[in-house]
């Protein structure tokens, strides 16, 4: 069996990343879109930790921790905004967010 190298992790991360992108691009439910963004951030983290292993230093892990913090903050604010939006519009479908255009 091929030894597991950094590249393997990169591919997994890329897959997660793309799954996140697909979610962002196609799902109608805002909550799931936000979850997809979490997927993207996880891909980033996976990258970082893999590289951290590759380089033998901890910068990547540190960065990953910061990204987790960011993910938490984004999720909190995003869900808060979503709730405010939901109160006004009674919907959480992305394609119904179309007041502002042109």
């Amino acid at each position, binding site marked *: 069996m091929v030894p597991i190298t950094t590249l393997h992790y990169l591919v997994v991360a890329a897959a997660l990343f793309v799954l996140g992108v697909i979610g962002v*691009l196609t799902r109608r439910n805002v909550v799931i*879109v936000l979850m997809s963004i979490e997927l993207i951030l996880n891909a980033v983290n996976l990258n970082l930790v893999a590289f951290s292993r590759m380089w033998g230093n901890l910068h990547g892990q540190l960065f990953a921790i910061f990204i987790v913090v960011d993910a938490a903050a984004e999720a909190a604010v995003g869900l808060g905004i979503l709730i405010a939006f939901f109160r006004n519009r009674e919907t959480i479908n992305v394609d119904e967010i*179309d007041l502002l255009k*042109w």
Partner: protein
Amino acid sequence: MFFLNHIWLIPLFPAFGAAMMFFFGRRLQKATVNAVCVGAVVFAFLFACFTVVEYTHFAHGTGHPFEKIVYTWLGSGDAHLSFLKKDGTTAQFNADAGFLLDPLSSIWLLFVTGVGMLIHIYSVGYMAHEGGYYRFFGYMNLFMFSMLTLILANNYMLLFVGWEGVGLCSYLLIGFYFHRKSASDAANKAFIVNRIGDAGFILGALTLSWYLGSFRFTDINTLARSGHFAIGDPVLTAAALLLFVGACGKSAQLPLYVWLPDAMEGPTPVSALIHAATMVTAGVYMVARSNAVFVLAPTAMKTVAIIGALTAVFAASIGLVQNDIKRVLAYSTVSQLGYMFLALGVGAFAAGVFHVFTHAFFKALLFLGSGSVIHAMSGEQDMRNMGNLRGRIPTTFKTMFIATLAIAGIPPLAGFFSKDEILWQAWRSADGGFPYLWLIGFGTALMTAFYMARLIFLTFYGQPRMSHEVEHHIHESPKSMTGPLVVLAICSVCAGWLGVPASLGGTNAFGKFLEPVFAREVAASVAPAEPQEPAGEEHRGLEWTLMLLSVGAAVVGGGWAYGHYANAGKDYPEPIAVKAPPLYTVLYNKWFVDEAYDYAFTGRRKIGKIRLGAMGAGEASSWFDAKIIDGAVNDVGWVTRAVATLSTWWDKWIIDGVGVNGPAILARMISYPARLFEWGLVQWYALVMVAGLLGFGVYYVWK
């Protein structure tokens, strides 16, 4: 030398009068207006007389010109502003306010101021009851100023000042009765046609300066006579032809004569002064002045002669059938001017000038006389409504009769000498078909006699054809009007005696006086072929024959007219109309030239829906401007409007846009898609981002 040194005052006298009228005229009494304006011209006349006398002393008979430069008019006055001549050297750009007196200008000076003075005096009576009295005299004085500038100028540019100035005054005076549409039309026509000539003149003068390096007559003459230039030099020929275009405009030659008959819309003294005696001879003056150039250009000379002869016969033919008394005289003037150019063209400059001189008197007399008639007839100008006036206005009748004899060429009146001199010279200078020109001149003489006699008979003989009311008012004109008539009549009789040709035992003093101006050129072009004086003996017989022929023609013409018109009652028949109705129609309608011009050049009339000429071009250009240049994108809008009907959505955006301007529409057409790109869906935004990333990535990674 006082007068010569202050020669520039001559034009300034009338200029002063004009300025006075311009600033204060409205508040002045008529008497004051008379005093200022007539006084100015009288002063000018007296001053001119003294000047000419002084000049004769100055020149000692050598004809050496006197030149007085007052200041540099165009140009910076030093050698720095210069232009490149044709030969690559540079010449100073300079046109002075300078004055030149030589025999040629002396003659013009005298008769212009003289006739002008008489006509001013005449106008006092004629215009007494008209509105705009001061305006009239202001214009007249302005005219005198321009005319005097024209003839006293020492260079082409200052001459052009007078040249345009007389054109302007002519315009103003023709349009004096501006509330009449016909008058303002005629005024415009006069100015614009003159302008065409002026353009030619300017180009001619520029050619000369480009070639010879100066605008001054003396410089140009000296250079032209220096022998550096071959006869038939193409540039000089071009220059001469261009100058002649200018002369055609000013002196009403084919094809630019059309303005002169219409110019009769002006008050009669104006017709007399401007459109008979002085302004229209400016072209003759200018060509005579440029004789040094013209003799080096035989082609141009030939053109001048042919145009002159054609004009003479053409205008005379129209004059045969006209009914408006002034119009007959107008065509007569055109015809006589043709004679003058014929003379110039065959190299007989002196003869041409002589005819100008005599013509000034009798034609002015005729116009003034007709003015007197019109005055008597309460403004009626149609000869069909006149008749049997000879007893009612005797002075007018007598003087006009004399003038008619003079113009018809009955010896020993003025016209006989000058006209026969021209005809003789035309015959004699047998340079390639000039006898034909004589023939034309001869025919013209016949016609002249006929239409002039017709005029006299219709007006003064026959039965009265006017209404009773008019008849009741007929009266002889006041002294201020008849006085000048008498003076002019005397001149018309006597003026010719100044130039009695050698063949009749005269000395041709007139010709001699002018000799210094022309002699050498005549020697250069015509004389070598035919020595002048020795030839006299051989040709005397022939000359006599020709004289007799032309006198005979005059008599025949007059007699023919007598036969038809002497007893004309109401509904008298027109002989030509009876014998050749189509010809009559053509002549009566002036060969349809005006109509042709309207169709072809001015565009005032349309052919069907198409408009040609200047206005046609103007319309086309405006259309082009509005539609093509400005509306290139408006058209895009137009197309989209057609598409717009297809869908209401499209409609909403585009109709909105069509109303607005051109470029905006195109911009809008791109703008809406650009905005539609932003259609509010957040995932679409994300997709575009991903697409952007993909695009660049694909380019770099997979290229």
